[in-house]
């Protein structure tokens, strides 16, 4: 495990690829942006943040909206507005699934005719445009392409909001599996010359009855075209898998301390371990202040909740003020008690997750949503070791 002294700064300094993952809604994109911004500001070099689906205002702030698959440099003006002079460069790119698939087909297609036939195939358009699984693969593929270009010192990647947080880890292997599967051979065997074996017969029976033979033929045609790209795809998928396992790559598991996301984070850490992938750090977002755990605070809250009138009468100037103050004090006591319960539960969760990771970063509840570079840096500073 990484040294805890340098915290997330150490994790970022030691790696070329950092992949943030975790369940939906925990602040993965913001964390990826914050880490990349801090690396560019403090450590220098060329840093790219590759995001999948940023909030619109953040995308706008980073100048990402019109660019699709283009990598764009965060302008000096944005840094100036955030009051920072960075040591390095921050670049950002958004994943355009459709465009990335098209690029991949152009790269691997054996000839122009096959390329055009695939790009025009309705099944291809459906698969690449609509289906979540295709994001997983293409995100990893794009990462590989960017990393091997050598254009960046550090790439921070935000993972897609998959149904199952680990899907994208398996995407390259699944793709390779698929191309070498017996099923694909069955599918693309021309119907007249199909050698119906004992093994394939139930498949045809079911597939024909469910899908209808015309649809099967459509699928077959698509995969016959696609198979021409077999070698390229399998080689790439293997390279992407190797890259994920490379010691230059680390994963950062992002979570809040709510029960659902915490469970998911813990599960994700298990999966990383099982796959021999490197857990660089755990980042916890929206953490409540420690003061909520103070027993003296709870004592105060109890008095305020139960004896607000008595306390108010001792402070107030007149009966009218005492009534207002009484309401205020009761609310203060109740809300402290409410948040203290949440904070206790979260402290337990935090302890459990901290035992699993060498580096744990915590970001407090912020007053505003992160919508610009300054916001990303505020989050980043919470994760950075204090300097001086």
């Amino acid at each position, binding site marked *: 495990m990484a040294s805890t002294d340098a915290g997330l700064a150490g994790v970022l300094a030691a790696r070329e690829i950092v992949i943030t993952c975790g369940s939906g809604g925990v602040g993965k994109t913001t964390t990826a942006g914050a880490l990349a911004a801090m690396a560019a500001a403090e450590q220098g070099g060329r840093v790219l943040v590759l995001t999948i689906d940023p909030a619109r205002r953040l995308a706008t702030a980073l100048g990402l909206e019109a660019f699709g698959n283009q990598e764009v440099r965060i302008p000096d003006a944005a840094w100036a507005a955030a009051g920072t002079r960075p040591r390095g460069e921050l670049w950002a790119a958004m994943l355009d699934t459709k465009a990335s698939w098209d690029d991949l087909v152009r790269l691997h297609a054996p000839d122009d005719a096959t390329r055009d036939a695939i790009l025009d195939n309705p099944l291809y358009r*459906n698969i690449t445009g609509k289906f979540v699984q295709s994001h997983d693969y293409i995100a990893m593929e794009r990462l590989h392409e960017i990393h091997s270009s050598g254009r960046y010192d550090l790439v921070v990647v935000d993972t897609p909001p998959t149904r199952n947080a680990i899907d994208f880890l398996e995407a390259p292997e699944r793709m390779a599996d698929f191309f070498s599967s017996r099923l694909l051979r069955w599918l693309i065997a021309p119907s007249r010359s199909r050698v119906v074996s004992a093994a394939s017969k139930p498949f045809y029976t079911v597939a024909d009855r469910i899908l209808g033979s015309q649809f099967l033929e459509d699928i077959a045609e698509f995969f016959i075209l696609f198979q021409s790209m077999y070698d390229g795809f399998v080689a790439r998928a293997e390279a992407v898998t190797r890259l994920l396992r490379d010691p230059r790559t680390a994963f950062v598991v992002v979570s809040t301390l709510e029960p659902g996301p915490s469970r998911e984070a813990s599960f994700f850490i298990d999966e990383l371990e099982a796959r021999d992938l490197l857990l660089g750090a755990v980042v916890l977002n929206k953490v409540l202040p420690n003061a909520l755990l103070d027993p*003296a605070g709870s004592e105060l809250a109890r008095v305020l909740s139960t004896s607000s009138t008595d306390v108010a009468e*001792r402070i107030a100037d007149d009966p009218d003020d005492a009534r207002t103050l009484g309401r205020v004090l009761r609310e203060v006591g109740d809300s402290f008690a409410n948040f203290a319960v949440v904070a206790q539960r979260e402290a337990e969760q935090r302890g459990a997750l901290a035992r699993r990771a060498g580096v744990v970063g915590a970001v407090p509840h912020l007053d505003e949503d992160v919508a610009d570079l300054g916001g990303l840096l505020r989050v980043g500073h919470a994760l950075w070791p204090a300097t001086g």
Partner: protein
Amino acid sequence: MALDLLDRRLLFVTGKGGVGKTAVSAALASLAAEHGRRTLVCEVDAKGDLARFFETAPTGFAPRRVQPNLEVMTLTTEESLREYLKLQLRIPLIAKIGPLARSFDFVANAAPGVREILTVGKVAYEVREDHYDLVVVDATASGHVVAQLGAPEAINELVKVGLVRDQTGWMQDILHDPARTGVVVVTTPEEMPVVETLELVERLGAETQVALAAVVANRVLPELFGRREEERFEQLRTDEGIGALVAAVRDVDGRSGHVDAAVATAALDAAELAVTLRRAKADHLTTLREGLDAATPLLFVPELFARAHGARATAQIASALSDEIGF
């Protein structure tokens, strides 16, 4: 409200990950069951969370009764396929399908809509056969649900003939009937969930013919202070105010000797955090209300501070929803 939410036959509950759609699914189902509706609640995104909200063991494809009138099940594509083959095709090969499941997985991935139509088909089937008065589906998260609800139409376009195509007609009849089927979008009063909710509502209207039944805003914080209380609160946060507060508290309760200015400041900061959160959330709720059609019911469920899981949380959310829809 022109049409009562729980008078429908099929509700798809969706929303961005982490907003509590499973809790709301459980609560809606529980509420309907309490009012005598024979109710089935299905988990599609098989994380096993739904069972926790009824404090029951992990559920499988076979529905399990968890309270009077209420059954819970977990939907998997593979078992839906198995049942479909058994019911629709009377295939004598059921026993041999085991090793096929993995192969079918590929076909389902390759052939768009097949996986989705098995899911939608199963729940619509339960409605068609009148096995239940209400089927609540804890559906997939925002983005994917559009593909799921649009699957029968997608299949209709892609597949020209065959058994699957023949099945899409009755499914669409049920799905496209606003009196029978509706989508409930769950959100929280935060920026991203609200933005995604409004985008999803737009996509549902543009890309599917399934009606939006309601939007549920979950984890809404109570209003803490009016203007006058807030001014008084600010006065309290000065050094002088805190000094007076500590003295008064010690005077009122002899056991509160540990309470000092630092403790009082932290307590007031915690209340400030509550006020700030509540105010930011109120702004997001305004954005949500303004972005929705005026006819769309917007239901509020308060933040539950005590527990986020278990049957008690389900009951509390059900009670909040009951107040909101007057059911």
